[in-house]
């Protein structure tokens, strides 16, 4: 293509708010997603802190039971649908996927912008619901409670329905981009592992999300027209809703974790100066996880009254998830062997991911074993397991990615020691908050409890204190990230010594990413000396 020089980077060229709101540049859309989702992360985090405050002592601490029930619903719905599902694919994926495969943009840039506004519309509906009568069903919307609840269930599920479309269209866009827009020489086996992870995620988004679409639609009709499909009082089946819901929401868990795994696969080789250990195993295990994710939804329903045969099948299938997951963890650890390891902040987060995700993954075994799950189901053990995977996994991956790519996105370096202190606070705070919950769960404290017997008080207190460390860590992080934007100085094009394409262009990138479309001749993690 014509190679005339472009002035300015994507942030400043073209200028003006209007040019941002109507942009079709994948990098700007990525940033807009990031700003929106991080705002929701902040809001969801406030609700989390309030929940922990209420649970600090038994009985009424701060709010009524109804308020508490609404707050945990808000926390769950906001964090799941508005933060953790979009944040890595739609924000970082949008920004880096095209660059990493040597493309100028995603396949359908206008559709990409449309997805963003659809997401905003869905989020607005949900927020409206919270402002109207709220919602007290939990983020799972189980029937028949969600049919009877006198809160704004229709609005919030309509919001989820609309946000689902955004997720579908983003996934569709990425699949086509990966298939059709790779630059010359970029074969599938030369793609960075982050691209593989986003690709596997996109497949799940496209195949699973329509089902939550129809499920929320049926729930809305249930409330508006009393169709009765999920309402036992009208001849329907309440447990059917759980099947529909988890058919999406279990794969959705992998929509949340796979991109985080992708980031870890980028960060570890760069900071260990090593070729990734077992590239193909990591790449294909993402696809394997995506495939298995569709066959295990029933493990959320071991005590729901579904048949013993179904329980047996779902238990055995769930066990299979352990294998590709463990291969990844093993390979990441093996990548460190005989490397040259630098503990810059992105790497600190990547190693914390290994630490906490391993706990999250292993505790999954307890829940997959039928007899043990009967005891642990719907207790704090599940809450702890879920947060170890989602926060100890995905959020650690996200933070690794944010610190890793921040210089590329904004052309600024963050203050290293502030980042390390913030990491320390988050690491301690997270483990304090959630490790205690494994004990609470084993000891039988059910989840979604506003009040609890006094024997659980001590552990709850520790958990709540942990949440304050998290608050301090994240507050410091927000501060140094924002401050970095106003510091003088410019980040170099390749501060970490990365070999993937995004590090071969300017920081921040120009509007069309590459002055000339690159030709790829080698593998993405070509570090190391063959014969030492």
């Amino acid at each position, binding site marked *: 293509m014509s190679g005339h020089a472009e002035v300015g980077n994507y942030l400043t060229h073209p200028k003006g708010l209007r040019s941002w709101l109507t942009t079709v540049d994948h990098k700007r859309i990525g940033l807009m997603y990031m700003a929106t989702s991080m705002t929701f992360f902040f809001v969801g985090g406030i609700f989390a802190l309030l929940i922990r405050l209420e649970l600090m002592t038994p009985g009424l601490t701060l709010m009524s039971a109804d308020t508490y029930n609404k707050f945990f619903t808000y926390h769950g719905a906001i964090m799941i649908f508005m933060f953790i599902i979009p944040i890595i694919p739609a924000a970082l994926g949008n920004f880096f996927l095209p660059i990493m495969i040597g493309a100028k943009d995603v396949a359908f840039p206008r559709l990409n912008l449309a997805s963003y506004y659809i997401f905003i519309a869905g989020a607005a509906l949900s927020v409206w619901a919270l402002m109207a009568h709220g919602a007290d069903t939990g983020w799972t919307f189980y029937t028949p409670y969600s049919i009877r609840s006198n809160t704004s269930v229709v609005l919030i599920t309509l919001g989820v329905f609309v946000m689902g479309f955004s997720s579908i269209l983003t996934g569709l866009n990425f699949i086509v981009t990966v298939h059709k827009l790779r630059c010359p020489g970029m074969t599938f086996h030369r793609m960075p592992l982050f691209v593989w992870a986003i690709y596997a995620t996109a497949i799940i988004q496209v195949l699973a999300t329509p089902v939550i679409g129809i499920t929320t639609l049926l729930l809305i009709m249930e409330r508006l027209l009393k169709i009765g499909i999920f309402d036992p009082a009208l001849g329907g089946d309440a447990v059917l809703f759980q099947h529909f819901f988890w058919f999406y929401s279990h794969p959705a868990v992998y929509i949340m974790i796979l991109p985080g795994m992708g980031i870890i696969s980028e960060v570890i080789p760069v900071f260990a100066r090593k070729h990734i250990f077992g590239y193909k195993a990591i790449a294909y295990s993402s696809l394997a996880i995506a495939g298995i994710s569709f066959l295990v939804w029933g493990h959320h329903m071991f005590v729901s009254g579904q048949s013993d045969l179904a329980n047996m099948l779902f238990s055995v299938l769930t066990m299979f998830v352990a294998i590709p997951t463990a291969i990844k963890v093993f390979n990441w*650890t093996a990548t460190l062997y005989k*490397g040259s390891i630098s503990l810059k902040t992105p790497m600190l987060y990547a190693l914390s991911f290994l630490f906490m995700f391993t706990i999250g993954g292993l505790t999954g075994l307890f829940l997959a074993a039928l007899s043990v799950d009967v005891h642990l189901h719907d207790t704090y053990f599940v809450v702890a397991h879920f947060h170890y995977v989602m926060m100890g996994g995905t959020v650690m991956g996200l933070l690794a990615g944010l610190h890793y790519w921040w210089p590329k996105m904004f052309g600024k370096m963050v203050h290293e020691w502030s980042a390390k202190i913030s990491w320390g606070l988050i690491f301690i705070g997270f483990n304090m908050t959630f490790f205690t919950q494994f004990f609470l769960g084993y000891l*039988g404290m059910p989840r979604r*409890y506003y009040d609890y017997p006094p024997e659980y008080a001590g552990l709850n207190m520790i958990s709540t204190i942990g949440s304050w460390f998290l608050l301090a860590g994240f507050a410091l992080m927000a501060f140094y990230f924002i401050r970095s934007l106003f510091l003088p100085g410019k980040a170099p094009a390749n501060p970490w010594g990365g070999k993937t394409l995004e590090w071969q262009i300017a920081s921040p990138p120009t509007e069309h990413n590459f002055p000339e479309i690159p030709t790829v001749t080698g593998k993405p993690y070509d570090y190391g000396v063959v014969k030492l």
Partner: protein
Amino acid sequence: MLSLLLFQWRLEQASNFAPVVDRLFDFILWFSIISFLIIVFGMVLFTFKYWRKKIPENRTAYITGHTKLELGVAFFLLVVVMVIFYWGWVDYKAMKNPPHDAFEVNVIGRQWLWQFQYADGKMLTNELIVPKDKAVSLIMTSEDVLHSLYIPDFRIKQDVLPKSYTNLWFVANRAGEFPIFCAEYCGTAHSAMLGKVKVLEQDDFERWQMTGKLPVGKRTMDHGQGTMDQQPDVTVGEKISLADKGRGLFASKGCTACHSVTGAAGVGPAVNKIFGKEVELTDGKKTKVDENYIRQSVNEPQARIVKGYQPIMPTFKGQISEEEMNALIAYIKSLK
């Protein structure tokens, strides 16, 4: 074992299932701790051994993988998880099959309390009294939304659904009081939907059944809460047994017109000696006569009709309360 060292307040093992579940729990715990330590040990060791200050960044090894090692890890893990699966499945199967001579109690969950209905007509709220060392089977239903009956010290839990029955059973092997939680979110007072199981020695239990009196002066050992002095809140006026109440309903609702209780032929099938048996339906399928089948036959008579009979029975939907339904089922069960 290790778990005992980790936390002193291990849950009490108060039922036949508790040690069984804990054994697998401990196995997975051990396996997890070892795997976790291997990963973390490797991570920490490599980080310090290959620190950037010691190893220059252009002097790292070129290793792209080791397929045999990966396959080895995968295979080893496959074996372990299959053991965990099979172990969990075998134990779970036992939890799903109550013995035939189990002592039955009907449970009704409603926002936000538990009701326990005994065969002799007693009805207790938020208090389940059971004999020690005897199998107890709970037949549970909900009047409104989903609930889940959970007894941590027994390691058992089962969702309670509206309009159908689910089952839970256990043998309590320790006398005392143990908390019951609702584990499925059910609205405002979800966390206050609490109850307790009182496990009595068998002779105490029999005395309670005869006289309605609990042993006085005996204090419970665990949790330090509550004593056995308090008399349970039995709904009075229910002097007749559940099955007897069912017999009355069977007549007053007009069932006797078509259904004999002696085996004699009628417009509808006779209802004696059918509980637990298999019957053939008009479409050739077979079904077991259980609580759910009787309930459905009362509410939706056309749904599953026994072969050789006409679909002419009217529905009783909305005319029979949960308590009455339990009584009718108890009556049909009692017809030997």
